[in-house]
């Protein structure tokens, strides 16, 4: 039995005990999906951070920084300042409305303004957008565990799927938030351990700031990878992530009071800044080490972190692998729980917690099945998720800023945005050189305003 499996066994037991403790009193949907609106600021911040920052950070972003340089930091920090900007304005309004009117899902807010049918369409579109994204999380974790000989690909998928469903099923949002909080701290500590090890091994007797200049154009933007068009196409959907992704939007309902909501946003900001800086610095340090011959040249950017883990002492490698696993689980079970709330409440109109629990199991099964089969189009669909979700933006902003717009405006906006995102992305077509994300953004707003002017 390798070191990872011992650590994994402890992780499973701890998480399951926490989820069981959280089960007490989960009788209503308000308790089950938003923890009765009684979550402290610190736990809210950690669950927000752990939900947002997936395995992409320690795998995808390390590799992206290694391959494309400093633009990866700009892309990720654009997301963070966008989130802080939006939350410092909208979060208090959303929280007040949700508390006053008893909203549980993001769809409840949409349904009240635009009609229940719009919330139904939104729940379906969110599910279609997020299932491939979740499957890619599982695939990523399965590959990491397989490459580091911690666990085979199939077992990695199965273990992830079981934990995602189990902890959400048992403890609802309270269980997810508590386990997220512990895992969020663990993710940050392991990122610090990773950068410390990389720095000690690569730059003990060298000056990083002097050596990094070897990276040349990777240290400026735009460069051959980060063209302005690519930067905008990746950044635009992420800038609005806090409003368009239901799993984080629903977290605006959970703080126990206004002070806790504020603390959630601020602490999340500090977590995000520290985590992003560390992760991108790992990528830049490893690339610099490659240039001075202290780290192998890795052509596939997704293989950078597995290569690093293979060079680390087994105990540290196992701990960091576990933190990557935790990052995937915390993101996935939060999304599954939110989707189950939207499907059971908005789509099926159920007020029962049991319906949501059944949907959690079915959704997780579908995600695992997708991950096992690894269809060719799954990566494209996953990348597409944030672009598809942009279609909701006019409706959400419309609640706060525009009086017009009703059922037809809502449905047509969602369908037009969804269709634009899917067609342009699959056809790999960028009319006038403008990327699909920008077209989706423009088409959704144009359709929304046009339909609103007609009063429909």
């Amino acid at each position, binding site marked *: 039995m390798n070191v990872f499996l011992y650590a994994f066994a402890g992780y499973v037991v701890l998480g399951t005990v926490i989820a069981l403790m959280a089960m007490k009193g989960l009788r209503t949907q308000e308790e089950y999906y938003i923890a009765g609106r009684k979550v402290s600021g610190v736990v809210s911040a950690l669950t927000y951070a752990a939900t947002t920052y997936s395995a992409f950070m320690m795998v995808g972003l390390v590799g992206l920084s290694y391959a494309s340089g*400093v633009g990866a930091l*700009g892309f990720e*920090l654009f997301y963070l300042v966008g989130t*802080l900007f939006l939350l*410092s*304005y909208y979060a208090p309004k959303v929280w007040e409305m949700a508390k006053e009117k008893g909203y549980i899902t993001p769809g409840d807010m949409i349904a009240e303004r635009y009609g229940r049918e719009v919330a139904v369409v939104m729940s379906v579109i969110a599910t279609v957008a997020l299932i491939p994204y979740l499957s890619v999380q599982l695939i990523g974790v399965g590959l990491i565990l397989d490459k580091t000989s911690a666990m085979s690909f199939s077992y990695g998928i199965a273990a992830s799927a079981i934990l995602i469903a189990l902890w959400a099923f048992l403890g609802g949002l309270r269980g997810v938030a508590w386990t997220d909080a512990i895992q969020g701290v663990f993710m940050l500590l392991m990122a610090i351990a990773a950068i410390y090890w990389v720095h000690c091994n690569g730059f003990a007797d060298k000056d990083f700031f002097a050596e990094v200049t070897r990276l040349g154009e990777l240290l400026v*933007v735009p460069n051959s990878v980060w063209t302005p068009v690519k930067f905008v196409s990746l950044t635009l959907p992420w800038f609005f992530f806090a409003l368009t992704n239901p799993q984080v939007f629903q977290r605006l309902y959970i703080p126990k009071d206004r002070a806790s909501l504020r603390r959630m946003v*601020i602490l999340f*900001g500090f977590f995000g800044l520290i985590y992003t800086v560390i992760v991108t610095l790992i990528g830049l340090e490893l690339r610099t080490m490659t240039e001075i011959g202290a780290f192998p040249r890795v052509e596939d950017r997704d293989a950078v972190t597995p290569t690093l883990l293979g060079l680390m002492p087994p105990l540290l490698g196992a701990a960091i692998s576990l933190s990557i696993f935790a990052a995937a689980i915390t993101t996935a079970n939060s999304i599954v729980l939110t989707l189950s709330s939207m499907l059971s409440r908005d789509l099926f109109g159920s007020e029962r917690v049991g319906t949501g629990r059944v949907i959690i199991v079915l959704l997780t099964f579908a995600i695992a099945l997708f991950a096992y089969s690894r269809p060719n189009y799954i990566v494209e669909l996953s990348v597409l998720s944030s672009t598809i979700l942009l279609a909701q933006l006019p409706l959400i902003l419309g609640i706060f800023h525009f009086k017009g717009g009703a059922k037809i405006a809502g449905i047509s906006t969602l369908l037009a945005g969804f269709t634009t995102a899917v067609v342009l992305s699959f056809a790999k077509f960028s009319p006038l050189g403008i990327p699909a994300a920008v077209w989706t953004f423009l088409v959704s707003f144009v359709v929304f305003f046009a339909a609103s002017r007609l009063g429909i």
Partner: protein
Amino acid sequence: MKLLEGAIIIAAMLVPFWAIKSYDMTTYLYWTAVTAAYLIYITIKRW
């Protein structure tokens, strides 16, 4: 006022695309500093 705040932060984040061309960690440190400054602003302002 909020729109102006948004325009300023976006403009500040875009500065490296046209104003920073040195092949060292300047862009990296600039983006980190701007984000940290905005985070501190969010922390101390009333909202």
